[in-house]
């Protein structure tokens, strides 16, 4: 099959790859570029583990064709920490024990980041709504909800 060129920005750096037409963004990120932070859980858009941020919107990378991402600004969990300092969401997930096996965590953090970017001080109900497309099978969700609320408080204190 003919390969197609695609260029986009991943976590602030330019990427250019030749990919086979029909390759999902998830597979392109993991297998071609080597960013394994988005996880392949169900590969059919149900579990949310592959969630990434494309031009500010939360997207399922397993349902997004890489060739449609030309010129896009893509963010993944691997790009969240700055200068070795964890993002407030990452810090809060660690401190709240909001991960066990960890497979859902990158998708959860991406979904939470989009929420906090738009709603810096969300209610519990808004957190539940924002994360409702992401499946966790270990934690019972409560520690994750608490981690997002904690990260929101930490971010607003830093901004104040």
């Amino acid at each position: 099959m003919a390969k197609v060129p695609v260029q986009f920005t991943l976590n602030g750096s330019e990427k250019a790859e030749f990919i086979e037409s029909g390759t999902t963004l998830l597979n392109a990120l993991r297998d071609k570029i080597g960013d394994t932070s988005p996880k392949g859980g169900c590969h059919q858009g149900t579990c949310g583990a592959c969630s990434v941020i494309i031009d500010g919107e939360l997207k399922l990378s397993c349902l997004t064709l890489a060739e449609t991402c030309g010129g896009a600004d893509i963010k993944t969990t691997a790009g969240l920490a700055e200068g070795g300092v964890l993002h407030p969401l990452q810090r809060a997930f660690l401190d709240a024990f909001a991960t066990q096996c960890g497979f859902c965590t990158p998708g959860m953090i991406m979904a939470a980041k989009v929420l906090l970017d738009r709603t810096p001080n969300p209610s519990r109900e808004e957190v539940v709504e924002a994360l409702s497309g992401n499946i966790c099978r270990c934690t019972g969700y409560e520690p994750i909800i608490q981690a997002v609320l904690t990260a929101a408080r930490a971010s607003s204190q830093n901004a104040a």
Partner: protein
Amino acid sequence: MAIRRGRGVAAINYPTGMNLGGDPTQALVHSTPTGNFMVTLSSVDLGQGMKQIMAQICAETIGVPTDRVVVDTADTDTGPHCMGTFASRGTHRAGNAVIQAAKEARQVMLEVAAEELEVNASDLETDGQGNIQVKGAPQKSISIFDVALSAHFKRGRSISGRGMFLIPRSYPEKETGAMKPSTCYAHACTVAEVEVDDETGEVTVLTVKNVFEIGRALNPKMVEQQLVGGSWMGISHALYETTEPYYPNRDHGGTDFNQYLMPGLGDLAETETIVLERPSADGPFGAKGPGEMCANPQIPAVANAVFDAVGVRIDTLPITPERILRALKAQAAG
């Protein structure tokens, strides 16, 4: 037709490990040339935190900081034998084996230190910070780093130990059938409040209050994490999960994990979890197995709450709206 509220309570005893033919786990501990300690196990960390707990147990026994211990659970072909990570046995069985192995390694470590310091090994103690010192005279000390170097390159000693923990097979007495199939019971009690819609059969869990007695919590935050997730899974067992809703008929079963129902973020009940610590006699530092038992008491508690709400006994899991409606219909038919 109405929304009816009910409350149910259940208490459980849950054994640690199993006993079908003896229940053994082995562990090996050895130091590297720089005085870090390696725990080798075949027991597997499934995400519940076994590596952290085994590192804590080894570090506490040898007398070094936890970050000086590396736990390798890589390979059941080459590692010391373990029956496996199941039946809530990991902390209890492997932990006891690690204590025994670490004690033996600590003894060799103290013997080498004694030779270096020209004192009796029985007069030495660890400071928990990576040093060995003479009791009552801490100025006379040697780092474990230097002890390990000495053992490896000067004294020709292996700072290592072997650990074995076995619950022997229990045979039933011929006359009475009495036997001891399990050991080290953990305990739990749950009170669940539900609302049942007697028109749709839908159950909403309002509150879940749990008390767990789990021996000593070796890592309290990880225990809490296990119990919170486990309580949610108990509700899931009670009301959601099945691969074969019409067993033994295979129809309408989920085809993958996407269709295998569990409560989502919007289905969470207000949950309270209390830990009681009553150290067990035979557990490592008093621990029991909190793993599986934490997802058990919610199931009968919810079943009892449904009975309290609408007066029907559902004895097949999960307690689906269909089962409740069929039971209500049968009840009305008398």
